[in-house]
C-alpha cells in the first residue's frame, strides 16, 4: 500500500508573540515546523502502513528551510520525502499549493491513498484537499475522525456538525483527517538519527511542470493583526456587598448571567 501524506511547513505558532502597540505578530526567529493536523495525517499513514505494510511518502512544498523541517516527518515514520522547493512557495495560497502538490503526486505516480489534515495550522482554509481532488479527479473524504482499510476499500467515519457519517470508498482516494483521529507520535531516537539518511527527492517547479500562470496569486492579504481585546476595565471600589451587587448587575446588563 502506497500512502502519500501531504504536509505544510508552518511557523511554530506557540512561539509567535504579538507586538502590543500594533497587534502585529513578531515573526523573527520563529522556528518552522510541520503543522499539527498535518502530523495527524502523517501519523495515520504510518499506522496504516504498520498494519498493512507498504510505504509512506511525505510530500511538501515550500521554501529552502523545508529540507530541514521535513526531517521531523521522516523521524515520525515516513519512509521517504518528495519536496518541491522554491522561494515563491513560501506562504503560497491554497490554490497554488493544491496545484503544486497535485503535480508532485502525479510525478510520484503510484499511490493508493493521499492523506491531508483538514486545514493547515496557519491559514486553516481547508481548500487544498478539495482542490487536489478536483485536479486529480479523485474521490475526497473530509472531516475524518477514524479510518479503516480493507483491501482496496477504505471505511471512514466523518465527524459532521450534528451526526457521524460512515462512508466507504474505493482507493485511490484523498482523505482529510481531523486532529482527534490520533495522537501524533513523539519520535524515537533511532528514528531521529535515521531521518537524515532516508531518501529525499527535491524537485523544482519546472520538474513538476507547473505553468507560471498557475502560480499567479489571487489572494491579497490586507492585514494580519491579532484580534483586539476590548476590555472595559470597570473597577468596583465600594464595600464587598455593594461591589458584588454592582458586579452582578453589570454582568447581567451585558447579558452574561441571569437573563
Amino acid at each position: 500500500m502506497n500512502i502519500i501524506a501531504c504536509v505544510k511547513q508552518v511557523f511554530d505558532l506557540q512561539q509567535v508573540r504579538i507586538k502590543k502597540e500594533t497587534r502585529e505578530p513578531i515573526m523573527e526567529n520563529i522556528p518552522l515546523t510541520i503543522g499539527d493536523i498535518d502530523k495527524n495525517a502523517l501519523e495515520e499513514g504510518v499506522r496504516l502502513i504498520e498494519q498493512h505494510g507498504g510505504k509512506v511518502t511525505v510530500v511538501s512544498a515550500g521554501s529552502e528551510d523545508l529540507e530541514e523541517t521535513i526531517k521531523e516527518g521522516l523521524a515520525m515514520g515516513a519512509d521517504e520525502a518528495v519536496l518541491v522547493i522554491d522561494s515563491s512557495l513560501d506562504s503560497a495560497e491554497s490554490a497554488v499549493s493544491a496545484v503544486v502538490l497535485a503535480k508532485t503526486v502525479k510525478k510520484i505516480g503510484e499511490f493508493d491513498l493521499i492523506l491531508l489534515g483538514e486545514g493547515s495550522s496557519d491559514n486553516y482554509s481547508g481548500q487544498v484537499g478539495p482542490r487536489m481532488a478536483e485536479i486529480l479527479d479523485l474521490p475526497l473524504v473530509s472531516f475524518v475522525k477514524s479510518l479503516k482499510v480493507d483491501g482496496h476499500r477504505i471505511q471512514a467515519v466523518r465527524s459532521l456538525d450534528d451526526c457521524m457519517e460512515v462512508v466507504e470508498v474505493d482507493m485511490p482516494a484523498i482523505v482529510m483527517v481531523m486532529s482527534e483521529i490520533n495522537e501524533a507520535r513523539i519520535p524515537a531516537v533511532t528514528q531521529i538519527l535515521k531521518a537524515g539518511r532516508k531518501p529525499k527527492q527535491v524537485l523544482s517547479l519546472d520538474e513538476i511542470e507547473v505553468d507560471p500562470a498557475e502560480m499567479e496569486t489571487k489572494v491579497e492579504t490586507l492585514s494580519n493583526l491579532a484580534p483586539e481585546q476590548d476590555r472595559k476595565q470597570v473597577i468596583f471600589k465600594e464595600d464587598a456587598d455593594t461591589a458584588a451587587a454592582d458586579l452582578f448587575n453589570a454582568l447581567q446588563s451585558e447579558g452574561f448571567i441571569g437573563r
Partner: protein
Amino acid sequence: MDRILPFTDEHKMFREAFGKFLDKEAVPYYDQWEKNGTVPRDFFKKMGDKGYISVWLPEEYGGPGGDLLYMIIQTEEYTARGLNGIFVRLHGDVIAPYIYRIGTEEQKKLWLPLAAKGEKIFAIAMSEPDAGSDLANLQAKAVKDGDYYVLNGNKAFISNGMLADMIIVAARTDFEAKPHKGVSLFLVETANLEGFSRKRHNKIGLNAQDTAELSFVDCRIPQEALLGEENRGFFYLMEKLQQERLVAAVNALGQARRSLDVTIPYVQQRKMFGKTLAKFQNTQFELAKMATEIEMAQSFIDQLTIEHMADKTLTKEVSMAKYYCCELASRVSTKCLQFFGGYGVCEEFPISRQFVDTRFLSILAGASEVQLVIVAREMGL
C-alpha cells in the same frame, strides 16, 4: 548569544521530542513520584521504548548510537522542568558505560540491551558508611570460594538502590595489595540474592530519586559476574570521571537556570509597597548577577564539552566546572528563594524544591572539597 556546541538538526529535533515526552510522561506525575519516594519502573520502560536510555549505545547492543550532545540535551531538558530526581541518566549514561567499556562480550550482550530498553534498572555501589570519595579505603570484601565470590559489606547513599535489578558493587578482593590496587567490580543481580537487603534513606530533597543503604551478608556471586579484571576496579572507576563530572556540571548549571527561570516571572508579578519586586534595584542587581554567572559558566561548560568530545584530558577543568556549577546552583536557589518570602518554603512553589534539590549537588558525584583538592593538585600545589 548562540551556543558554540555543534547541535545538528537531529539534536534540535531530539530536544523537542524529548521535551514533549517529558511534558507528557513525567511532568504531570512528578509531584506524586516525589511523594512516593521513587520514579516508577514503568517510566524507565517508556524511556526505553523511545530509545531515550543510553542514547550513546551502539546499535549492536540495542542503542541508537548517538553522541554526547544527546546526553547534554537530556540533562538540560530534565533540569528545565525541575525533574531533578529522575536518575535514568545514572542508569543509562553512567553505569551502563562501565559494562560497555570493560564487560565481556557475554556481559555486554546480556545487560546492555536490557538497560537500553529500561527492562532492568542499574545502580552502582561505591560509597560506604565510612568511605565516600575515599574509594581506596573500601571495606566491602569479596572472597573467592570455588566458582563464586562471597561478598560481605555495607553500601550507603546508593542512587536507584531500591529499584536496582543489577548493582555494580565495588569490593576489596586483594587484602595484601596497596588499598587502590585490591578493588574489583561485580555485576550483582539483586533478584533472589540470599543475604542481600536494602533500606531507603529518607532525604531532605531529591525525593523522587530513591537512595538506599545496601547490605551484603555472605552473598554468593558467580565468578562470571566479575566486571573487568580482578583488582583493577579502582582504576576503572577513575577512568570515566571526566565525563561524569562534566555531566554533573551540566546538570547543576541546568538546575541553576531553572531556579532563575521560576523566579523571574514571580518577581515581575509580586507587588510590595506599590510596585513589583522586579522594580527594586536589589532584585535587579541580584538576578542580573546570577544570570551573568550562569551565562559565564555555560560558555565554560560548552567549551569543555567540545574538548571532551575531542578526547582531550581535562582533569583540572572538569573538577573546576563540577565544583563551580554545583556551588552556583545551590547559591542561586538560596538567593532566589529569598524573593519568594514565606511562599518560598511552601512546597507548592517550585523554588522550594530547587532549594532542597540543589543542596545535594555539591555533595554527590565527588564533593566540592574533593574537586578543589584535584584542582589544587593540578595547579602543582
